[in-house]
C-alpha cells in the first residue's frame, strides 16, 4: 500500500511561524512590563518603609537599640533612595543618633569612672579594716578595764595621744563638713563611753615610722 503524502500549503506554515514569533515577542514585552511594575512596587514599598523607620527613629518611638538604629540607617542609606523627604530624614536621624551616641559614650565613661572610684574607695576601706576593728572592739568592750586595755593597745598606732581626729558629718559638692575636731585619746574614750562605733576611717596620715599623725573618719 502506498503511503499518501499530505502536502501542507506554504502559507499555512508562514502563518504558523509568524504567530509563534509575534506571540513570543508579545509575551516577552509583557514580562518586562510586569517586572518593571513589580520593581516599582518594591521601590515604593522600600521608600515607604524607609520613611516609616526613619520617622520612628527621629521621634524615638522605636524599640531598637542605638546599634540597631545605626544599622538600619546604614541599610536605608545604601538604597540610595532619590526622595527629598527620605534624604532630609536621613540627615536628621544621623544627627540625632550621633548625638545619642555621644551622650551614651559620655554616660558610659562616667559610669566607668564611678565604678573605678567605688573600687578604689572599697580598696581603701579594706586597707583601714584593721583600724576600724580596733575601734569596734573598744566600743563593745565588756568592762572599763577591758576598754582601757584596748585603748592603751590602740594608742600604739598613733604618733601621740593628741593626734587630731576629724569627723566628717557630711559631704556636699565635694566639700567635707566636720564635727568639732577631737584628739585620738579623747575619741577612743568617747567610743568607750558611747559603747558604739558609728564611723568608718576615711583617710589616714602617717609619719615615717608608720604611726598615725592625722585621722579622718566619716559618719555611717
Amino acid at each position, binding site marked *: 500500500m502506498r503511503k499518501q503524502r499530505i502536502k501542507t500549503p506554504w502559507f499555512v506554515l508562514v502563518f504558523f511561524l509568524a504567530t509563534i514569533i509575534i506571540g513570543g515577542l508579545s509575551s516577552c514585552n509583557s514580562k518586562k512590563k510586569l517586572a518593571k511594575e513589580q520593581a516599582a512596587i518594591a521601590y515604593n514599598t522600600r521608600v515607604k518603609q524607609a520613611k516609616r523607620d526613619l520617622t520612628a527613629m527621629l521621634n524615638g518611638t522605636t524599640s531598637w537599640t542605638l546599634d540597631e538604629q545605626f544599622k538600619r540607617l546604614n541599610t536605608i542609606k545604601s538604597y540610595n533612595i532619590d526622595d527629598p523627604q527620605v534624604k532630609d530624614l536621613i540627615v536628621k536621624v544621623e544627627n540625632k543618633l550621633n548625638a545619642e551616641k555621644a551622650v551614651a559614650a559620655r554616660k558610659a565613661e562616667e559610669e566607668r569612672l564611678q565604678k573605678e572610684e567605688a573600687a578604689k574607695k572599697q580598696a581603701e576601706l579594706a586597707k583601714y579594716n584593721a583600724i576600724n576593728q580596733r575601734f569596734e572592739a573598744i566600743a563593745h568592750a565588756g568592762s*572599763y578595764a577591758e576598754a582601757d586595755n584596748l585603748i592603751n593597745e590602740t594608742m600604739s598606732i598613733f604618733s601621740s595621744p593628741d593626734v*587630731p581626729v*576629724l569627723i566628717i*558629718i*557630711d559631704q*556636699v*559638692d565635694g566639700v567635707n*563638713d*566636720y*564635727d*568639732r*575636731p577631737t584628739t585620738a585619746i*579623747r575619741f577612743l*574614750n*568617747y567610743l568607750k*563611753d*558611747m*559603747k558604739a562605733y558609728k564611723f568608718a576611717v576615711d583617710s589616714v*596620715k602617717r609619719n615615717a615610722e608608720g604611726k598615725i*599623725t*592625722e585621722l579622718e573618719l566619716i559618719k555611717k
Partner: protein
Amino acid sequence: MNKMKKITYTLLFLLSVLMVMPATAQETLNPKRKQAIDSLALEKVRDLSKYIIIIGSKNTPWSEANRVINRAVELFMPGSEMGVSSLLRPQIAYYPVRRYFERLMRLNYSKVEIEWYKIDYVSDLRRQPDGTYVGVITIFQKFKGYNKEGQLVYQDTTKKDVTVYVKRKETQIGGQLVGFWDVLLGDMRVKETEK
C-alpha cells in the same frame, strides 16, 4: 524737686537690696547640709544622755565619772545651767552644769536609773544675725532612785528643753585651715515633772 527725691529713694532702695542679696544667698544652707547639722545637734544631746547615765550610775568608777563630767561640760556653752525639779518640792532649782553633774554623781541613792527618750526638735535651727543657728530640743527624762535594799524610793518623769547653738568655725590642723560645725548646748529648762 519731689520727683528727684523719689528717684533718689528708689535708687537707694534698689542699691540696698542688691547689697543684701548676695549675703542672703550665702546664708541659705544646702538642705543636705542643714539635715547633717540638725542630726549633729541631736547627736550631741544623745551623747549628753549617755554621759548622764554614766555619771549617775553607782557602778561607774569615781575617776571615770570625773573624766566623763569634763566631757559632758564641754558640750555646753560656758555659764549654762541645768534645771532640776522634784515631786517633793514645788520650785525648780538651776545649777551650773558642772555642779549639776557633781551633784548627780553624789546622789544619795544606792542605785540610780536614768533614761532619756523622745529626743527631738521643738524649734527648728534658725539662723541668727551673728551667723549662729539656734534651735530648741526637747527631751523626756525618767529618773528612778533605789535604796540599799533595792527598793524604788523615788521616781519621776521630767520634760526638759535645751537650747542648741550651732556655729561654723575654723581651726588650723596640720597647717591647714579646717572648717567645722561647733554644736554647744545652752540652758536646760524644766518644762513639766510628773510621777
